[in-house]
Structure formats: structure tokens, C-alpha cells
């Protein structure tokens, strides 16, 4: 017989589900919540009878009046099926209102994706316009292109952030967001420090300001992309 996790043996027999009129510390047990959801689903039978709990996704639900008592018997350690298996089964049933596992992006992730795309878009436009025309010093039209790239970046950010804020009701951050931000900043700082060193080396061996400014700008953009990319990776991995 599989051994139940400790948590499944916590509930004393005295605590009974509110939905059955006896109160479980004023709460409703999970099985009753599932039963109602499955009842709405219509094509599932969930029958709790000690010592086994059957979930058969083919027949109509029949909820017995003593379901919760059976559930409590189930939690005392006489189960033949571990709860993790039952969670797996119930997860397969749609309309039960269980959370999607990391499927939806948080406000922070959407914001980071916007920054990532807008950086590539604006500075991709700048570098593809400027780099083919190499010179010793920066030309006035290259400065104009740089200003255009910045304006494009700001516009994309303002419009995108407004749209994201309108779509997402929840914009708060927590300790995990701050930890991920710090880790991303650390990775970006490594790239930026390397870039500054290489830029100084380039300044010693090249004439004019064209190479100097573009190596520095290139590494700044790369550092930003590494910082944002690291954060996006950490959000997907968990932390």
C-alpha cells in the first residue's frame, strides 16, 4: 500500500466538510469542490468509498451523501491510490478550474518581452543603417539615426506598456521578481564591464570616435539583452 504524504494524514476525523453540514473549520473540503466541478462537467463519476477512491471519466457523476466521510477515511491513511495520482487524473479533466501550470505570463514577463523586442527592433534598425557606412568619425546623419532609434524605442515602450497595463489587472511585484531582477542585472553587468574594457582597448588602437562609440553602444545593447534574457529564462525556470 502506498504511503500517503504527511499532509494527507493531518486531518483528524472530527473535522468534516462544511458542504456536508458539519464544518471543516468553516471550510469546504477539496473533494466536495471537485465533486461540484465534476458534476458541472457531466461526464465524470467520482465515487469515494473507503479504502479506495475511484475517478472514472466515462460515466455520470454520482455523489453519495457520505462522500466526505469517506474522504476523511481516505485521508487517514487507508488509501490505495496516492493523492498525487488523483491530482494527475483530475488535472486531465477540463472545466474543473485548476490552474494552468506556468502557462500565462505575468505582467513582469510581458514587460520584459516588450523591452527585449523593442531593443532589438530599434537598435537593429540603427546598426543595420549605420554599420555598413564605416568612417573615422560619426557623421551628422548617423547622430540623427541614433536619435530616431531612441525615439522609436521610447514610443514602443510607452505604447506597449500602456497596452500591457490595460490587459493585466495585476502589476504588483514580490520577492521572487526582485531576486530575478538582481540576477539579471548581475549577468548584464558582466557583459557591460567586458564591453567597457574592450571599448577602452579599441580607443587606444583606432582613430576617431566611430569605432569607440559603436563598440560601447553595441555592448550596452548586448548587456541589456543579456539582462532581460536572463530574467526571462529565470521566470520560465522558476527562479
Amino acid at each position: 500500500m502506498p504511503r500517503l504524504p504527511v499532509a494527507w494524514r493531518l486531518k483528524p476525523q472530527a473535522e468534516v466538510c462544511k458542504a456536508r453540514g458539519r464544518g471543516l473549520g468553516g471550510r469546504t473540503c477539496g473533494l466536495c469542490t471537485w465533486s461540484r466541478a465534476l458534476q458541472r462537467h457531466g461526464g465524470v463519476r467520482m465515487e469515494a468509498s473507503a479504502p479506495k477512491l475511484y475517478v472514472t471519466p466515462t460515466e455520470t457523476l454520482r455523489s453519495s451523501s457520505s462522500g466526505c466521510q469517506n474522504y476523511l477515511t481516505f485521508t487517514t491513511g487507508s488509501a490505495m491510490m496516492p493523492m498525487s495520482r488523483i491530482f494527475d487524473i483530475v488535472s486531465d479533466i477540463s472545466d474543473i478550474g485548476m490552474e494552468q501550470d506556468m502557462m500565462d505570463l505575468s505582467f513582469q514577463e510581458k514587460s520584459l518581452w516588450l523591452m527585449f523586442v523593442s531593443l532589438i527592433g530599434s537598435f537593429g534598425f540603427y546598426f543595420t543603417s549605420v554599420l555598413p557606412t564605416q568612417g573615422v568619425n560619426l557623421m551628422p546623419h548617423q547622430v540623427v539615426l541614433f536619435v530616431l532609434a531612441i525615439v522609436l524605442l521610447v514610443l514602443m515602450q510607452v505604447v506597449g506598456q500602456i497596452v500591457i497595463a490595460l490587459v493585466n489587472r495585476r502589476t504588483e511585484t514580490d520577492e521572487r521578481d526582485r531576486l530575478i531582477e538582481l540576477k539579471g542585472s548581475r549577468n548584464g553587468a558582466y557583459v557591460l564591464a567586458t564591453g567597457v574594457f574592450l571599448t577602452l582597448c579599441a580607443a587606444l588602437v583606432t582613430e576617431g570616435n566611430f569605432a569607440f562609440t559603436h563598440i560601447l553602444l553595441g555592448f550596452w545593447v548586448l548587456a541589456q539583452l543579456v539582462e532581460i534574457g536572463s530574467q526571462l529564462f529565470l521566470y520560465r525556470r522558476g527562479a
Partner: protein
Amino acid sequence: MGKSTGLITNNIRALRFHCGEMTQQELADQVGVTRQTVNAIEGNKYSPSLEVAFRIARVFDVPLERTFQYREEVRAE
């Protein structure tokens, strides 16, 4: 001497079930974190700070040790 590595596990999924299948969002609202953080904690992908761990335990009205467990594994080198 072996090298020890620790793993923090939790019973949050089970405790949510006992609270009438409380949703991750409901738990997140009560604890003061985002739903994604609750999801990451529940999946053992992120170990919360002591403060958040205590707040989670308080929501379920159980001791911290029943919410989180620390398992240390010693590997021989």
C-alpha cells in the same frame, strides 16, 4: 566526508485541497505574492524567504514544518 545537498519540499498543493481547493491566486492574495510565485514554490522551483514561508503556513493555520520540509542528502565523494 560526503557532500551534502538539501532539497526543500512542501505540502502546499495538499493544504490548498484541504481548504476547499483554494486557488493559487487566492493563496497568493492572502500571502502577498504573485500567483506565479505560488506556482513556483508549489513546484519546488523556488524556495521562498522565511517571511513568506511563515505567511503561507499561517494562511493554512498549520506549523511551518507541516508546510515545508527540508531533506538533506549526503553524497559520497
